[in-house]
């Protein structure tokens, strides 16, 4: 007579792998976005500081 009860857990490993890919993938993407934005802002800051350094002597000449 066949048992009506489950004898082994369902085979759901593909879904588990997909779940962990999403968890680690999204966290890694967010970390990457932080690094990229940080690098871009540092570049902007350098340019703006250079511009500021150029503007100061000119304003001194005006005075």
């Amino acid at each position, binding site marked *: 007579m066949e048992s009506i009860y489950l004898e082994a857990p369902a085979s759901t490993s593909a879904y588990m792998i997909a779940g962990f890919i999403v968890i680690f993938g*999204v966290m890694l993407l967010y970390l990457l976005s932080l690094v990229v934005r940080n690098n871009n802002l540092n570049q902007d800051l350098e340019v703006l500081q250079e511009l500021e350094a150029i503007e100061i002597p000119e304003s001194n000449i005006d005075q």
Partner: protein
Amino acid sequence: MKSKPTMLKILDIVTVLLLLAATTMVFFYAPLEAVMGQVQKVFYFHVAAGWVGMLSFLTAAFVGVMYLVKNDFKWDIVGLAAVEIGMVFAFINIVTGSIWARPIWNTWWTWDPRLTTATIMMLIYAAYLMLRAGIEDPNRRARFGAVYAIIGFLSVPLTFFSARLFRTIHPIVVGTNQPGAQGSFDMTPAMLQTFLFSLLVFTFIFIDLLWHRIRLGRLSSRVEQLKLKSLE
């Protein structure tokens, strides 16, 4: 930009080690659930991600109040950082829930009260980011953002209690499941330890990411100020 503080470097290392430990516990310490099989292992990080999402939105509401009281931009930077992190983890929570639901509920999605309120909560905070992007004046942007974060927080307890107040098929961890809940299970001591440890680890991830995002926010604010100055 200032170099990374030593405390933050230590926190980075500790957080990575804790995440490795939690992942090891999920795969090698927590037993396999008898009915659902391997996919149940997603549960530990699914709930932890939901916890970080809600903790982030609570932080945003709190710092929103602080900004309105103190009128100091540092609170605005923290608020934006918290909402951004909250969005990332709320997204992880919803997508992993959908992946779990496919073999357990036999559907990727259903308009169940918990799933619906969680989606509304995410959309409310997506609108927060859109609102901020549409305001140029920094004072106005910070003030509107603070008020929005406080009002938007109403969606968080609504999402949390939806599975307890309404008829739902979504199982709950703390409290009694609704009669129609599908996919609920009794946790063994090893499962409970893994679950609680995952919550702790994700709290560390939240603090670490928040610190990094606040530093980025400060840098962004400095660049914005220099840009405005150069235009004058």
